[in-house]
């Protein structure tokens, strides 16, 4: 059993994973006083990258300027550090269960290239969507539902509902 766990095929039971994620969320609220997030870290990185390359543009832009202040860098945000922790933790978990290697997971019917392009396109759409919704699966749906926020439930329904619908069109990418 212990040997099988390390050959890269072992994944945690999804239900147990869900409970653990809830506990992580719970302790996040307890320790930091706010919820989890992921898209916020990407947003901070984008804002500070734009601000470094084209400061004038970032300051004039209505969207970017919201996140800029003279006192602190947009990178000085708890979500940025949380995501660094997620990467470090994922790396540790991958090491422990022998899953560390470079690979692109995709359906045998498509190439890695198609899969990467689709992933990038999906990522861009999701990034834009999360900014309209003021948060992504973690920041709006999960953290919102944990505090019984209606917007959290709506976000969760919208994300997984539309995923259910669109999976019919894009199922070719997976099976």
């Amino acid at each position, binding site marked *: 059993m212990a040997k099988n766990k390390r050959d890269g095929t072992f994944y945690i039971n999804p239900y147990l994973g869900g409970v653990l994620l809830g506990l992580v969320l719970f302790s996040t609220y307890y320790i930091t006083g706010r919820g989890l997030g992921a898209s916020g870290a990407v947003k901070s990185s984008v804002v500070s990258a734009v601000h470094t390359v084209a400061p004038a543009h970032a300051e004039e832009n209505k969207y970017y300027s919201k996140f800029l202040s003279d006192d602190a860098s947009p990178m000085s945000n708890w979500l940025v*550090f949380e995501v660094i922790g997620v990467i470090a933790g994922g790396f*540790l978990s991958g*090491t422990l269960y022998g899953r*560390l290697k470079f690979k692109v997971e995709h359906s045998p019917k498509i190439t890695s290239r198609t899969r990467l392009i689709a992933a990038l396109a999906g990522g861009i759409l999701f990034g834009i969507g999360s900014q309209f919704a003021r948060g992504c699966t973690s920041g709006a749906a999960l953290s919102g539902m944990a505090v019984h926020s209606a917007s959290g439930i709506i976000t969760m329904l919208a994300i997984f509902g539309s995923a259910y619908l669109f999976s019919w069109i894009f199922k070719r990418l997976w099976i």
Partner: protein
Amino acid sequence: MKEELFVSGRNIPNIDPYLHIWHWQIPIYLFLGGLAAGILFLAAVYTILGKEKEMQATVKWAPFIVPFALIIGLFMLFLDLKHKLYFWQLYTTIRLESPMGWGAWVLMIMTPLSIIWSASYIREVFPNWDWKFKFLYTFEAWVIKNRWYVAWPIAIYAVILGIYTGILLSAFNARPLWNTTILGPLFLVSGMSTGAASIILMSKNHEERRLIGRLDLLFIAVELFFIVHMIMGFLAGSQVQIDAANLFLGGEFTVPFFVFVIILGLLLPAILEILELIGFKVPIVIPAILVLLGGLIFRFIMVEAGQITRYLY
């Protein structure tokens, strides 16, 4: 006439109340100096122990970085000088109590020694290398024959170089964060750790990587111990030292110090190296790069934070 004349001896721009004279060049130099000291120390020690065959990367390949690191580091120091053309006066002003004087002389000895060390191995890397002059071949043969004796001064001066990168800061008696003797040993082990990490990056031999990885773990443990020791020392000190420690314990450097130095630069690589020692497959470049980045950020933080610590009047 209602004007008042205010006379103060304290109007010293860039020095009082906060030091504002050391910029990015200094931490980069301190990092490169420590890295060079770490590599050369390990290279010399394994030569003295007679392990050149087993430890090829440690003894032969990694020291090739050192002359470049030292020359770039010296150039950084040169860039930092206000009166660049007077740099040579560091060598005409002999003062035993001056750490900068010591550093200038140690670098004056170490840079040529590291070039000679690498030169004596250059024909093993590039077999077609031609020294052009006969006396160079004679000198090379002499160095190769007497490597064991050349290694001794290198090992000793490497320790002095590593300690000096910390003493350079701790000699500032007006800056509480720097003015602690633990800084010398702390920068020495940190330099040893970054040196070990670069050897791990260059080595292709599994046994060698394992051995240097173990040493690196030891360096990381000692470094953590020294950091705890340093902070405890500050907290047991006077108010200015407590204020200096508080920069890392809730003050403005808390997050970069704990996230990038303690967690990502020391604890995570230590955990990954332990996992690799137990038998898990870890791409060893990851902990090595984390250690190098952690060492670099540590020096940036120490130089930045030290300049804003001050005595109360």
